[in-house]
């Protein structure tokens, strides 16, 4: 995808987020351009999920600004941010446990694009055939990995302009992880879907992404193309090799 002309789709500038007294993000700058896959890697507790939640307005940033398509969304309530077509598959899945798989997908469906509902459902079912087998089952009775698939599928149902995935590979079998990453890549190439991805599975994520950021203790310490980051010895030491020889 060619880069955009009018500046990045999502622009995060100097964002500081607190949980009570504790500072979680200490001034973060991140850009996501239209049609890009950008990944954020870092250790557990570095603040990756917090950044994702801050973009969604829960919690709100105490300082700094977040703009989406040139609009300031820093102080916007979460439901209004979601209406701008920023979809998230959050940490901990957060599916609706008492609703069936299909109902969960309906909850995600873009309200003004209901005409495409069947088509969109077919699309996510091609991506996750497993969900099709479970279509009438309640979300809460799915296995952990299936719930993860459902959360991603629900996010895709909004036809997002920006898809944010928090550890999509969590709890998924290697084969499925591979399929999900391939699917993200394909959606990006064919439909120009913009993706912001938080991953522990740094190797996969960096291979997939156009660009990557590394977060340490609430600060971005490094950025570059996926390939560049993969080559950096300090990244490899910290996030790729398990210290196992």
């Amino acid at each position, binding site marked *: 995808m060619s880069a955009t002309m009018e500046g990045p789709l999502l622009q995060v500038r100097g964002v500081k987020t607190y949980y009570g007294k504790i500072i979680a993000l200490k001034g973060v700058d991140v850009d996501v351009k239209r049609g890009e896959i950008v990944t954020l890697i870092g*250790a557990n*507790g570095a603040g990756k999920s917090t950044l994702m939640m801050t973009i969604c307005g829960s919690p709100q940033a105490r300082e700094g600004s977040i703009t989406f398509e040139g609009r300031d969304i820093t102080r916007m309530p979460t439901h209004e941010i979601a209406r701008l077509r920023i979809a998230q598959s959050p940490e901990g899945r957060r599916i609706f446990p008492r609703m069936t798989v299909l109902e969960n997908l309906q909850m995600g469906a873009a309200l003004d694009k209901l005409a495409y509902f069947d088509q969109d459902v077919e699309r996510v079912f091609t991506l996750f055939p497993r969900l099709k087998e479970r279509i009438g089952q309640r979300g809460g*009775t799915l296995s*952990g990995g*299936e719930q993860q698939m459902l959360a991603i599928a629900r996010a895709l149902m909004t036809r997002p302009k920006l898809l944010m995935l928090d550890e999509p590979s969590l709890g998924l079998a*290697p084969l499925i992880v591979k399929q999900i990453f391939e699917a993200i890549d394909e959606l990006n190439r064919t439909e120009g879907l913009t993706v912001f991805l938080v991953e522990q599975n740094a190797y996969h994520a960096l*291979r997939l992404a156009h660009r990557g950021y590394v977060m340490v203790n609430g600060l971005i310490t490094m950025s570059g193309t996926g*390939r560049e980051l993969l*080559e950096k010895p300090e990244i490899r030491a910290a996030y790729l090799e398990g210290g196992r020889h």
Partner: protein
Amino acid sequence: MAHALATAPVGGRTWQADPVLRVDHVSMRFGGLVAVRDLSFEAGRGEITALIGPNGAGKTTVFNCITGFYKPTQGMLTLTHADGDRYLLERMPDFKISAKAKVARTFQNIRLFSGMTLLENLLVAQHNRLMAASGWSILGILGVPSFHQAEKAAIDRARYWLDKTGLTTRADDPAGDLPYGAQRRLEIARAMCTQPELLCLDEPAAGLNPRESAELNALLLSIRETEKTSILLIEHDMSVVMEISDHVVVLEYGVKISDGAPAEVKADPRVIAAYLGVDDEEVGKVEETLDEIAEEAQA
């Protein structure tokens, strides 16, 4: 079944000689849905047994049957202690499986007591022993010294596990404040504080980065070596499964499709087709590619 028997040589396997856990023809139905179908396998004493398979294959259901959260529709689950005591797990309520049969578990979506400190979490795990020491609270209210000794011993054991999991400095923080990886370690520490015979871990490496996974491997190996606790684990991270397990059981759609040593299972075409998706092991591929990149960079 026939296939599994064909790949795993009959007899002479370490886990069959002295199994800590025997799963015998266990089936679990939920209404019309068959989650587990006629599953049999053994977990060897002092070994690490991995249960792997695609999502929704029924792995967590098997765990819930072993730990008493579900009662299997059919079949038998036998746990044998090192001293020869036998327990039929399908006949015991869940809390007794932990208290008497000494099976401890962790959960896929971490279940810590998030509003209690790390130390408190580890003391709750030693509830039954402390309860007896406190004379079922009656002596405890009066503040008898024997209870204080028991509590001190419990705190020492908690400290031992905090040290082992690298969480000592955070002992007085609430568990809910810990980062994800540390929460996973704390859950293992809490399970170990019950002094189990069999430790069941549901996706202990989920959400961990490769470095943390490696630390987890070291922790699990040390539990096997120094505590002599047998481990049964569900895991998708092949770097954990292949590296530390002595025995791998593969499920697909509730049926066992392979059972054997890691190398055998890895080479089993059915496992590759259903689960791994490539002939090569995930880890190996990562390292190859990394080496490739490094070479390119040097050139």
